[in-house]
């Protein structure tokens, strides 16, 4: 049993509304964990407490035994937590390769170097990372010219640059075509398996969730209402209740998303 992340009793209220209430979970090495729930369930709040953007009112988050609460996001990143964004955030005035190089430069604490050529630093490693996400042929293109799916893959490469133990992915497939979603998540799953990275991700697309998540946590109104594998969650009456009665809803959502 190799626990990477322990979240305990996380709670957060915004002006009297309890966004997350007493939420706890563990994450094992190499595990692919999905965090789902209807809109307003507290997924994003929860996510932001893990990556340091929000400070919980109560509770603790421990990464390999070290407390993360109260630590700034960029320090958390340095402790080995990578992340991707719901809407991609990249350096649009740089090339694809340079984007990855920047992550490496920061990881190696070379940001204050005034005399090296940034484009010559950590090139090989950056190319390897791009290869990992099959972006090598785009390496010298301007980031601003990329298709959205490619930006997502670039973000993944950036997130892997500092060999993280944990990857936080906020709606990794949002805004993508269904075929791309499957490809991206398959790629992610493969990398995760190979590199023994643990992943927590939130997701709307239930196909993606059921296809790849090792374990699923369901949040509703800030509380954990269910936990289990894909099939366990599918069968869970409380989950069906939350998603407005009946497993049909999952299909309906899928159709809506693919329309």
């Amino acid at each position, binding site marked *: 049993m190799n626990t990477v992340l322990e979240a305990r009793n996380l709670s957060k209220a915004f002006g009297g509304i309890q966004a997350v209430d007493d939420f706890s979970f563990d994450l094992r090495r190499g595990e692919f964990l999905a965090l789902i729930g209807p809109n307003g369930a507290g997924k994003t709040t929860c996510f932001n407490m893990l990556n340091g953007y929000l400070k919980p009112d109560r509770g603790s988050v421990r990464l390999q035994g070290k407390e993360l609460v109260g630590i700034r996001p960029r320090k958390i990143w*340095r402790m080995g937590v990578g*992340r991707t964004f719901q809407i991609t955030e990249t*350096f649009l005035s740089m090339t694809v390769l*340079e984007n990855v190089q920047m992550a490496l430069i920061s*990881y190696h604490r070379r940001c204050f*170097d005034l*005399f090296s*050529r940034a484009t010559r630093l950590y090139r090989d490693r950056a190319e390897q990372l791009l290869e990992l996400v099959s972006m090598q042929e785009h390496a010298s293109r301007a980031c601003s010219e990329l298709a959205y799916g490619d930006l997502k893959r670039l973000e993944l490469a*950036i997130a892997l640059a500092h060999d993280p133990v944990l990857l936080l992915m906020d709606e990794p497939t949002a805004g993508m075509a269904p075929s791309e979603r499957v490809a991206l998540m398959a790629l992610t799953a493969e990398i995760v398996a190979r590199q023994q990275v643990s992943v927590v991700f939130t997701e709307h697309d239930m196909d993606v969730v059921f296809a790849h998540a090792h374990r699923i946590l369901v949040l509703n109104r800030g509380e954990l209402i269910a936990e289990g594998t894909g099939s366990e969650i599918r069968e869970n009456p409380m989950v069906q209740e939350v998603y407005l009665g009946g497993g049909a809803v999952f299909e309906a959502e899928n159709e809506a998303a693919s329309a």
Partner: protein
Amino acid sequence: MGFYFAQLLTGLANASSLFLIASGLSIIFGVTRIVNFAHGSLYMVGAYLAYTLVSAMDLGAFGFWLGVLVAAAIVGLIGLLIEMTILRRIYHAPELFQLVATFGVLLIFQDATLAIWGAQDLLGPRAPGLDGALRIMGEPIPEYDLALIAIGPLVLLGIWLLFRKTRWGVLVRAATQDREMVAALGVNQAWLFSATFVLGAFLAGLGGALQIPRETVSLQMDLSVIGEAFVIVVIGGMGSVTGAYVAAVLISVLNAFAILIFPQVSIVLPFIVMAIVLTLRPHGLFGAAGSEHGAPTEPEQPLRLMGEKGMMILFAAMAVFALSPVIVGDFTTVLLVDVMVATLFAVSLHFMMGIGGMVSFGHAAYFGIGAYAAAMMVKQLGIGMLPTIFLAPAVAGAGALFFGWFCVRLSGVYLAMLTLAAAQILWGITFQWQQFTGGDDGIVGVWPAGWASSDKVYFYLAFVCCIGGIWFLRRAAHSPFGYTLRGIRDSRTRAEAIGVDSRFHQWMGFTLAGAVAGLAGTIFAFSKGSVFPDSLGIAQSIDGLIMVLLGGIHALAGPILGAGVFVMIEDWVTRLAYWRVIFGIIILVVVLLAPDGIAGGINRLFARIRAVRKGGTA
């Protein structure tokens, strides 16, 4: 008691005057995101027109108010003309580029006004029926002040009704909050912008016209009001008309009381208030988050290292430049030193604005600190010239370190205005504190050491320092630090997510740019032999800004081209009569031909030539 009440009324009357001009500026910025330097000119023209109309009509009270309104309406039409012929063509240019165009317009207006109305200040008539004073609690209060006190809130109410009760007003408010949304709704943006500009110009004209019973109409009106108007807009929050009124009242009433206790403070008071407000509320009193940035623009292209061919051309050009003193006369050598100083200054500003994404309206502060530090070290501390060249930029860097700490907490136009506040506070202190800085009489006798006093030797000294400085910042732009700054500019979120302390890096970038500007100031001080408060004045900052934007903010070569062209043209054009109108037209032509700056224009030109050639051979 009556005394203080009367002082309050005086403050409120001034507030109305300031509000009228600031409200137009705020509305224009809110919707079109144009920083309108020509707003003061519109105000001035409003005053001149009102003077002519009211004097000509001589119809008593009716004639006065009619004259004021007609003057404002004409200024509104002038605004329409400016918007349709110039600004409309460059809305998609990089952020803030439009201010270069408005600067050109400002120059043209200065000469046009001089040509039409002559040089002498004109004293307009007082407002008929409001030319006396009333006694309130025993204190005499000018009747016209009372009228102004009423006019301010009335105009505010009028704008409020316009924005709440008309479809156009609703669109303007929507555009202030979210431009893309309005565009998506299928509203004709061009007309919305035109109408906004007309309204803003009308208000500026009205503000000017209403001043004629209070002050003489003069050619200095444009520049004397524009700084304060910006301050009011920023304190109130960009785009917020109510904010502009509250800010105008705050500044005017504070000033009315402050001069009773500490009269010297007037000159810097608005800037001190602005600095405090921005430090506590980064978007001004009523501004919304996101109100600080201009229209989104095309992302910049990735930087490329220079190819071998480019390197060779560059080295050849440098060699020719280095040999130029042998070929040209002494005066040209002196002019080239000026060009190098301006270029180094522009490059340092570009490092901050273009690379670092921190727009500065007050970069002259560090240029001036460098110049003054050099002058004081040589004259008062007796330090030699060479150590001074190293120490003075360090002092400028220390100044930038101090002010930068506050500035990097903000972004966009608010950051720019805080840099302006820093520069203006420094300028005010330097200008007024005669014992320490020599005040307006400056510090003279700051000439190079004996061995470097000939124009040629000094040219080479300046060459080493300036070209060295430019090379260093170019190198820095390609370094991890430069890339980090560009990364933060592109996406602060992404930068933080890869472990970059964005604020700290910006702070250091700010400091570095300040130190290099200080080096430019140091070279400047020795080349001119004297320093005056002008070296940290607003005109110096604006010159730098124009050089960077005119040259092209998206290219490393931009500031170099911009500075060279600017200094050379200025040196040539000032020999002519009415040179400001010529200079203004040149700027407008460049702006319209190359909305991405000179560097961008040249790139496009070369691209076209290449395309034609390829077409020819194929």
